């Protein structure tokens, strides 16, 4: 292939299950079919991914959804303009707590049903009880300050009247170390993608209390970040890559391929975790810890529900949360940068020749669809939603000022 490939693309990824669409594009022949030699480089930290994209070691990378925004907005030590032409999937994360915290929550009415409101109310009661007894605040971990995990954990806590900065402590722990940190008592809970929640359940040291797919249904997670200068200089290579990723995502979503995908990701070069522990992410059937099992609809979607479309409303929601938690001031300039970061135009133009269903709009009102809804789209039919937040709030990207003002704590 290397002698005949029209495009050579270097891509960085982190060993997480949601790198699957990128990994399968390279390993299952989808990239090669589009004339791409896709060179995959496994990394050890998001900081390395950010640095290597910025200095040109990588053309594109598996990134946390808010990360290209943070890079473009100058929030990172090594800033660079990074765009998002493709989303790698919806959902996939859980909130896991220690057995001790779970017992405390259960005493305050939590049940093993993953209900975010019920679990959050119980957690809030436990936190107030601990504070009254003069005990240390609970410590939660997320993978990165600019991550969907950080923002959805904070959203959940705040909606349940728990102040994420005052009532708990939030620290950063790399995903593969989460379960160990929990069992060692260094943290009391965490929000992370699979398989690192099921890992704690399998070890008997953690309980899954809620999931991203219930906090905000069909919500964004990882994306493909591309260095803007590379994307502008290599439009054909980028379009070919997006088509390869589209075919790969479809393949990853098909239940027929679950076994093959788990076997691929199990290789040491990729996720390097046993196939069995990847199954919850693929099937949505989660062991919660201590016996109960729950099936979560649309737990992780690598393709369905327009999962790969880089909605500007997703980027803008991340932007509002950066503002909400004091990472960034809300200014017209910052808002403009955030608005230009996700690029549905590039996605649409790359996939147009395939005649597949494409959303007609660039943004949507998040939380407006209460049920699965067929939408107008170019070509074939497309079903979106439900996309609601668990607390019933609506995010209208045309009314950002009001949304930010309503979430302001001061």
């Amino acid at each position, binding site marked *: 292939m290397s002698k005949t490939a029209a495009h050579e693309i270097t891509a960085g990824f982190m060993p997480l299950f949601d790198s699957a669409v990128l990994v399968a594009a390279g390993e299952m022949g989808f990239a090669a079919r589009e004339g791409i030699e896709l060179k995959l480089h496994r990394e*050890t*930290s998001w900081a390395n991914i950010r640095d290597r994209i910025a200095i040109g070691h990588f053309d594109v990378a598996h990134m946390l959804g808010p990360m290209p925004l943070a890079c473009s907005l100058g929030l990172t030590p090594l800033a660079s303009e990074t765009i998002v032409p493709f989303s790698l999937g919806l959902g996939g994360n859980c909130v896991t707590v220690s057995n001790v915290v779970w017992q405390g929550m259960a005493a305050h009415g939590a049940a093993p049903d993953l209900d975010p409101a019920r679990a959050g109310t119980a957690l809030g009661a436990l936190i107030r009880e601990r504070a009254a007894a003069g005990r240390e605040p609970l410590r939660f971990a997320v993978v990165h*300050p600019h991550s969907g995990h950080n923002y959805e954990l904070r959203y959940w806590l705040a909606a349940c009247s728990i102040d994420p900065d005052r009532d708990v402590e939030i620290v950063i722990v*790399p995903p593969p170390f989460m379960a160990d940190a929990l069992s060692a008592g260094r943290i009391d809970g965490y929000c992370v993608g699979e398989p690192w929640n099921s890992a704690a359940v399998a070890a008997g040291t953690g309980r899954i209390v809620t999931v991203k797919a219930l906090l905000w249904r069909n919500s964004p997670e990882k994306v493909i970040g591309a260095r803007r200068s590379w994307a502008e200089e290599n439009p054909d290579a980028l379009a070919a890559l997006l088509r390869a990723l589209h075919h790969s995502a479809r393949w990853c979503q098909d239940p027929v391929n679950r076994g093959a995908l788990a076997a691929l990701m199990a290789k040491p070069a990729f996720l390097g975790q046993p196939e069995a522990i990847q199954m919850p992410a693929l099937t949505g059937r989660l062991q919660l810890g201590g016996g109960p099992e729950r099936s979560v609809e649309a737990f992780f979607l690598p393709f369905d529900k327009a999962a790969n479309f880089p909605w500007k409303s997703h980027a803008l929601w991340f932007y509002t949360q950066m503002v909400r938690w004091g990472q960034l001031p809300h200014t017209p300039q910052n808002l403009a940068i955030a608005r230009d970061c996700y690029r549905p135009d590039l996605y649409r133009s790359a996939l147009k020749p395939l005649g597949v269903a494409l959303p007609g709009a660039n943004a949507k009102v998040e939380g407006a669809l209460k049920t699965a809804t067929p939408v107008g789209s170019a070509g074939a039919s497309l079903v979106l939603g439900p996309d609601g937040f668990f607390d019933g709030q609506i995010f209208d990207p045309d009314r950002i000022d009001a949304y930010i003002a309503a979430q302001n704590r001061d």
Partner: protein
Amino acid sequence: MSAGSLTILVIDENRIRASIIEAGLRDAGHRHVTVVHDVAGIAKRIAEIEPDVIVIDLENPNRDMLENMFQLSRAVKRPIAMFVDRSDRASIEAAVEAGVSAYVVDGLKKERIKPILDMTISRFNAFSRMARELEEARSELENRKVVDRAKGILMKSRGLSEEAAYALLRKTAMNQNRKIADIAQSLVTAAGLLGPLEGE
């Protein structure tokens, strides 16, 4: 101020490389150098040491945690930024190429940090070169061992002289466009599967 007045923290899980960096810093006149191999309890150490400069290897999976801590933690009195100067792109690229990252406290002058970063980069590169050469020497030795075993198998099973056994391996490798060591490894593996032909 002399070079020695800066406090430098080196975080590297690789003990050999860390000691090479430490030696380089001491040679350059830095007296306040602390080396940490394990990030457990790092916040407390940073609070004690109050480093002006922190050097970290890029293989460290805890880099996201450390970076966040430098920026937000109460353990760090002054905010720590990455690298000497965001505009110094060449230094940044050289550092990432070498596999190292440096963080400095806010307000520290570029000319004070640049020699430290340059020295660290060159020592990281020297270490990689050394590790690569060591790996090459090791695999060379391994290759020689497996070729010797393959020769032994051929001599015993086909009654060849050592010279003839080697010639056969070489000819097969050339015909198949593979390395002699690969052919030898295949032969040793096959012999192992087929029975106790050697070492009885």
